[in-house]
């Protein structure tokens, strides 16, 4: 290997590790959780291994509680919820707007706003307002993309992805249609084999965190308002006849099965603010 080639690969590796390493989420209550763990060891209880069974539930619950505190009280956000500091409110519908639910415009009005946006008839400076009006949810995995819950005339619901492309806005159906009557829905984005996966959906019951459990034991956790790889954006909106729903989208995470190209299966859990599972959805590819 030449010295120059080695230097190049070293620099590229350093940069790749920096980007990847900084993408892992750090819970706001991490220190508290460490103290609790250490405390459990100090009080004479058995500390054998990492207590994989108890840990995730407690952890998810703790993260969820924090997320909800942020959600319900916008003044808890950095800068009093005004948008400074960490970008919790970057999207048109950020966690701080979750309570009370954002009332969407009536069906014809919402449809007209959406049609204008998708046709590129909305001036760029008006887009933010239009997206807010629609209750659009920022995609944590891609800049300048939002999700909109659109109710069809039949009462079915479909989540659409709206992406900025210069002066235009492209709108594409992002998930399958959730038939009328469904109280919740989760769409899975990911390919077979190794690659990125993310989840987007809605639920009538309030949800605060999520857990993907693959059949091989791999677990991924997300929390509304979390950061890095554990980030999920969430918002509570009123959708037509359906009433208030929480819509959510998780950041993409990389999953690697034991063999490349292998079928991917697992369960995606929705958890409420107390860390209780309120919805379970199988996913597969």
């Amino acid at each position, binding site marked *: 290997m030449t010295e120059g080639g080695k230097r190049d690969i070293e620099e590229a590796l350093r940069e790749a590790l920096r980007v990847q390493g900084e993408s892992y989420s750090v819970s706001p209550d991490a220190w508290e959780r*460490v103290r609790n763990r250490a405390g459990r060891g100090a009080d004479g209880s058995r500390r054998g291994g990492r207590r994989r069974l108890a840990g995730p539930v407690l952890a998810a619950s703790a993260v969820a509680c924090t997320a909800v505190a942020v959600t319900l009280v916008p003044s808890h956000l950095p800068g009093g919820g005004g948008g400074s500091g960490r970008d919790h409110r970057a999207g048109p519908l950020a966690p701080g707007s979750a309570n009370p639910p954002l009332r969407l415009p009536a069906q014809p009005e919402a449809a007209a706003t959406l049609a204008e946006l998708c046709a590129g008839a909305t001036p760029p400076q008006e887009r933010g307002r239009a997206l807010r009006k629609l209750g659009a949810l920022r995609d944590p995995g891609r800049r300048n993309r939002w999700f909109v819950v659109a109710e069809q005339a039949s009462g079915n619901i479909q989540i659409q992805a709206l992406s900025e492309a210069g002066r235009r806005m492209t709108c594409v159906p992002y998930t399958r249609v959730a038939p009328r009557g469904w109280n919740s829905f989760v*769409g899975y*984005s990911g390919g077979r084999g*190794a690659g*990125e996966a993310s989840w987007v959906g809605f639920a009538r019951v309030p949800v605060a965190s999520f857990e993907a459990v693959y059949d091989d*034991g791999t*677990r991924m956790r997300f929390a509304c308002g979390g950061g890095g790889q554990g980030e999920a954006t969430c918002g509570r909106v009123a959708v037509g006849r359906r009433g208030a729903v929480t819509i959510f989208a998780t950041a993409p995470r990389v999953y690697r099965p034991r063999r490349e190209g292998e079928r991917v299966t697992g369960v995606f859990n929705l958890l409420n603010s107390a860390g209780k599972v309120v919805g379970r959805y199988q996913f*597969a590819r």
Partner: protein
Amino acid sequence: MSVEDLGHREAVTLSGSVLEELFAAHYPRLVGLAGLLGADDPEDVAQEAFARLQGRGGALRRPETAPAYLRATVCNLTRNRRRHLRLVRLRQPPPPEPAAAAELVVLDREGHRELIVALDGLSRRQREALVLRYWLDLTDQEVAEAMDVSAGSAKTHIRRGIAALQRALGGAPE
């Protein structure tokens, strides 16, 4: 007054504050270390390392040894977790047919992803050595301590790891 001079009761109090300082200084980097080594729940690993550190009064009475202890613990815990996942995968029956069709969205891949994937294909020791060196900027000796190998071995793993990465990326002949 040095930490060694304190009685047991005082040492415990100070240990708490030392641990908190260590936590503030090292926790995010250790979460990154666990993630880059392939832990499925990097925060869980990093938190367990700190909890174990608190259980080791000896390490805390000499705070300068604590970062090395934490790094080695994260490496060990991640290794164990990956081994456990491998066993679970071996024991599980073939996955069932998908329950429902799902949406396929091709996500943009960032440029560095190729390198991270290539890193994942390295041997466990080469990967550990490279992550410790290039993520935490450790010296050969520090890498060796975290991996519990000799400094010469650590150096070899780093050299071979870099060469393997270059081959994987098509930048050098076999």
